[in-house]
């Protein structure tokens, strides 16, 4: 019977401390009854017979899990809420990371774009890992106390508020909102860089905006702030409606017109006191920037047309 004791001990090792003695005791009694019944059928049992009977019962870990099934870290009904929380928090972290990386980038004398992107990616990944672990562990801790967050009734709703079935575009993706938010905040920081960068570092830059271009950009800032507010409104509604579409059309039209105007206006860049260590001259960079602005203007232009069509469908 030593095999039975070893088997029961192996099962007990896989069980929670509080249930080991009770389940082990009961399991042993059940196995002994089973072996008794086998003995009645076959006569005296050899060690091989006992081993075969135990093997038929299953691996100790499997048997332990049948008695006390392993619990998921987060309950299935809380998974949608967990995913939503992760998206929101990661989106906010991305925006915060854009602010930090852009400020640091503007403060550095070389203004290396690849280094900026690497810093942004590394900072976001580090924050995202921490946030992911913290959020999942928080959900696990709350589930561990027996509470299910997914059971919260939430705010009242009506089927009438649901978007039309044939208008799939009406649902606004969180990724779109956070991308817009990050872009706008990036633009605001770049436009107002004289405020963030100390004068010594600013003077050390090899290329800067001309005063006229910078003034135009600063005058356009209220529209960018409006775009941020529109994104926050989208975050709250999550469904395209008439007002949101009108707001989006106005902001995107302003962006498209401004970008084209900026591209066609006087010199945008000027050489700083430091020598430019680049493959390109200031003139070539200026040309590149103009073409870049014209191409970029196509995106808000496309969104204006898209939202006008959507508005037509909505009506």
């Amino acid at each position, binding site marked *: 019977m030593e095999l039975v004791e070893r088997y029961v001990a192996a099962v007990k090792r896989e069980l929670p401390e509080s249930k080991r003695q009770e389940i082990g005791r009961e399991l042993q*009694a059940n196995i002994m*009854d089973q072996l008794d019944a086998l003995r009645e059928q076959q006569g005296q049992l050899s060690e091989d017979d006992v081993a075969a009977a135990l093997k038929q019962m299953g691996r100790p870990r499997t048997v332990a899990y049948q008695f006390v099934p392993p619990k998921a870290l987060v309950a299935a009904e809380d998974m949608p809420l967990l995913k939503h929380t992760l998206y929101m928090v990661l989106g906010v972290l991305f925006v915060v990371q854009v602010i930090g990386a852009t400020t640091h980038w503007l403060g550095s004398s070389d203004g290396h774009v690849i280094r900026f992107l690497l810093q942004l990616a590394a900072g976001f990944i580090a924050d995202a890992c921490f946030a992911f672990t913290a959020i999942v562990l928080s959900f696990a801790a709350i589930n561990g106390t027996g509470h299910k967050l997914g059971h919260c009734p939430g705010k009242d709703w009506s089927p009438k508020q649901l978007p039309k079935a044939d208008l799939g575009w009406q649902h606004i993706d969180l990724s779109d909102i956070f991308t817009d938010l990050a872009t706008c905040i990036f633009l605001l920081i770049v436009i107002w860089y004289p405020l963030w960068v100390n004068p010594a570092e600013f003077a050390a830059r090899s290329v800067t905006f001309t005063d006229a271009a910078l003034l135009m950009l600063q005058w356009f800032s209220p529209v960018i702030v409006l775009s941020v507010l529109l994104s926050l409104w989208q975050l709250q509604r999550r469904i395209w409606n008439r007002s949101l579409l009108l707001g989006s059309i106005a902001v995107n039209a302003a962006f498209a017109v401004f970008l084209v105007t900026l591209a066609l206006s006087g010199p945008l860049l000027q050489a700083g006191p430091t020598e430019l260590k680049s493959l390109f001259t200031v003139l070539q960079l200026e040309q590149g920037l103009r073409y870049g602005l014209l191409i970029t203007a196509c995106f808000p232009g496309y969104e204006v047309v898209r939202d006008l069509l959507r508005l037509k469908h909505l009506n």
Partner: protein
Amino acid sequence: MTSSQLDKMRLELRRGVLVLAVLASLKQPHYGYSLRKQLQDRGIDIDEGTLYPLVRRLAEQGLLDSEWQQAEGRERRYYLLSEQGKELLLQLTDEWLQLNSALAPLLTESKKLSQSPEHNQSGETE
């Protein structure tokens, strides 16, 4: 339908019914092995890996009373339907009978239909 699909469906179908069978059997006190034997004799084959944890869960829910007893030189845990279990069994039995009376004619009709020659012919032409 593959055999794994059939096994999965059978498992789902049996899961609820086994609770009813165990509760009904425990109007008399039983220990684990004797309960399994009784169910087996009645045509309900249930492996120990399913039965023993199920009985424990029902006891933890207060549907069964349990007591350790010494018998034939060995200790055994005997289970018996509690008052709460009796009440639940009555309700579940009504539910089962009602469901079965509705389901039986439906299944008989469906079986007859699938065995009829017209049905087989239309199945072939499709």
